[in-house]
């Protein structure tokens, strides 16, 4: 059997209402290209891509329209063929803004000509494979959007011996990764083999929560033939088991040191969506131009797992899902625990848009500034073993130094603390605020030292 139960588990964590039943059984469906695609140059973590086209240009699907804007950056490609209508600053789903290229599709959806598939990838060198990933514009599709080619090139001296494929999808409601594992297990497995070759690591663990037995079975089936050290690790369903550090601990029993990276314990974590994108990029030679987004929530008439072109507006996505059947009071880009609330449906999908969630008015709670009653629930829930209650009181008193002393920078903003807090304190908001304050202070000090 290619499966093993997780031997470890971090303390803390929560059991929210998952509501995955809304879309867990719904096969992925492809959405027709909408009437306009607004393709952001910042779909990843790092420097925005540099625009490579001008207004009025005709582009083909897969054509490069944004070149690396720095070392930590990701390329952007045209998601369909058409005409560049505008190039302008546009708000992003995460609350910032970035240059975006508006493409009016011509309806032909014609691919660029110079597509080179590599069915013979096994004979290619690791370096070449990484450059194929880099050329295809792949960023971590689990949420953070870190450039994949950078992640796959550890600095010399760092040995990565274990590859963990994150199929936990621990955020409530989201089922995009779940469906990918059920429907495209074979391709994901080939993606895994490509990463394995790049890293030269033998051990592979595919981490899946036990609420997805069909995904576990599908992955296990495609891995059956593998002669190497590979297995599906079955995680207990609990949020946030998909968080990188928590997942590494669950799969390997190793703690990533504070401020460190998974490679410090010899591990690397890739999301299943990213792994599939790597397969598409290498074997088929296709750049990343689409992704699966779970459009869900009780007010949505026909929730589903939608394969949409990057740059599709949230309004178009909702319309494709037949709109709303009741009132929605909150719209979240991503999952309910870590996603971003939206002011409007104008934002467009990116490489990291895992979900679009609509919440009913009665599901929406507002935070209050009630005092902490020291119940300790946040302390017990925190998967980083922090003391959110104390931290938040310090931050409220504007004592950022004390919060830094108590390791607020280790907070992963998972939201477990705020989920449990009976006083409805805005704990995550406090943590974010303190982290931003500390980072700003550090940048200032650095700048001072330089001058």
């Amino acid at each position: 059997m290619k499966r093993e139960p997780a031997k470890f588990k971090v303390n803390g964590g929560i059991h929210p209402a998952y509501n995955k039943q809304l879309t867990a059984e719904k096969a992925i469906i492809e959405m027709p290209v909408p009437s306009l695609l607004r393709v952001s140059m910042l779909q990843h973590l790092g420097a925005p891509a540099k625009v490579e086209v001008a207004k009025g240009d005709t582009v083909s699907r897969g054509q490069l329209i944004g070149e690396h804007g720095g070392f930590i950056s990701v390329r952007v490609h045209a998601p369909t063929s058409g005409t560049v209508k505008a190039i302008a600053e546009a708000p992003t789903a995460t609350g910032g803004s970035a240059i975006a290229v508006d493409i009016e599709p011509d309806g032909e959806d014609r691919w660029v000509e110079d597509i080179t598939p590599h069915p013979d990838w096994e004979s290619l060198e690791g370096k070449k494979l990484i450059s194929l990933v880099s050329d295809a514009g792949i960023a971590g599709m689990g949420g953070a959007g870190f450039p994949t080619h950078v992640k796959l090139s550890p600095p010399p001296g760092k040995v990565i011996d274990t590859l963990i494929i994150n199929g936990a999808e621990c955020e409530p409601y989201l089922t995009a990764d779940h469906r990918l594992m059920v429907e495209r297990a074979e391709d994901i497995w080939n993606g895994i083999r490509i990463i394995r070759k790049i890293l030269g690591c033998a051990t592979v663990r595919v981490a899946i929560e036990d609420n997805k037995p069909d995904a576990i079975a599908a992955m296990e089936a495609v891995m059956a033939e593998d002669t190497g050290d590979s297995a599906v690790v079955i995680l207990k369903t609990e949020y946030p088991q998909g968080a990188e550090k928590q997942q590494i601990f669950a799969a390997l029993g190793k703690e990533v040191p504070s401020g460190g990276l998974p490679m410090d314990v010899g591990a690397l974590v890739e999301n299943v969506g990213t792994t599939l994108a790597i397969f598409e990029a290498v074997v088929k030679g296709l750049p990343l131009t689409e992704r699966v987004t779970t459009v869900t929530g009780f007010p949505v008439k026909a929730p589903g797992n939608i394969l949409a072109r990057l740059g599709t507006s949230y309004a178009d996505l909702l319309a494709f899902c037949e709109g709303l059947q009741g009132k929605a009071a909150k719209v979240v880009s991503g999952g309910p625990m870590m996603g971003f609330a939206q002011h409007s449906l104008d934002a467009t999908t990116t490489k990291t848009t895992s979900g679009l969630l609509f919440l009913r008015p009665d599901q929406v709670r507002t935070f209050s500034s009630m005092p902490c009653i020291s119940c300790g629930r946040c302390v017990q829930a925190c998967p980083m073993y922090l003391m959110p209650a104390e931290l938040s009181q310090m931050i409220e008193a504007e004592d950022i130094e004390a919060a830094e002393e108590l390791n607020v920078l280790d907070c992963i903003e998972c939201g477990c603390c705020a989920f449990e807090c009976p006083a409805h304190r805005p704990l995550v908001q406090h943590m974010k605020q303190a982290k931003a304050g500390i980072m700003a202070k550090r940048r200032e000090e650095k700048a001072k030292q330089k001058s």
Partner: protein
Amino acid sequence: MVEEQKAETPEPVLNVVSTSPHAHSGASVQRIMLDVVIALMPALAAAVWFFGWDALRLTLSCVIACVAIEALCRKAMGRDLGIGDLSAVVTGILLAFNLPPALPTWMAVVGCVFAVAIAKQLFGGIGYNPFNPALIGRVALLISFPVAMTKWSEWTIPSPIGIDALSTATPLGLAKTNVMSAGTLPYHFDGGTMLQLLMGDQNGCIGEVSALALFIGGAYMLWRKVISWHTPGCYLGTVAAFSCILWIVNPEKNLPPHFHLLAGGLMLGAIFMATDMVTSPVTRKGMMVFGVGCGVLTMVIRRWGGYPEGVSFAILLMNSITPLINRATAPRVFGHQRKNKEKAS
């Protein structure tokens, strides 16, 4: 085609934009306090059963007084009334439970002023009070009206010589004076006595007598996850272990562990007072330290102190070091080494 569908779609009302998370457990302070009130109901029923009208009189007047004082204080400070969280109701019931049945109503109301106005609102209201308000109320009354606060009703004590006698002392008080004057214990301990104490047929404050009723309330709070076993478990366990050792060393002068557990205010204290969230530690380890500390202090006062009962003082003393306990038991942050390990390596 997409355009067409869009026209039919009712626009979502995007009126709430806040930081993540966008999901919540549904827990609220009000619900927690309501659960505590529910958990106190069996003990209230027992109080009414054993003390009749007096139990109702004290409980009702304390609840009304506490809520009114809370509202008045908040109003005077220009804040919203804040009585919706039910915490004043809990304080009122707990204070009443710590009073002897014959206490005049006006004295009980004085206790409420101490509890809510001084011990709670003066410090900033719920969440900011370092000491358990109900216990402050009780101790203030004990100091202000020592006679009225130790005036108990009549109780049939199980006597060691086989003739039951009437007493107006609490079981623990009687033991203390007897050990001090005669050097021996006034009881014999058989199943009947234990049952009597368990059910609540004993002298004491109105809410503390029935260990069984308090236990049922505790079980309810455990089930509702309002409290965890750590504080009461360690508190009761420490008292049991401590008294067991004393008893084995000298059974003539020391009460047996089951007597310590069932008599006096221990159950009420361990289940409802030591578990008060605001004034007890937030970490699991801290809760255990807190419970053990309460247990040791309670036994030291009961055995060697001037008062026959030590639960209130023990908990208040531990309240005062809660911030220290929190600091000392802060968990090791994920990905950090323990301090001493860091030095070693």
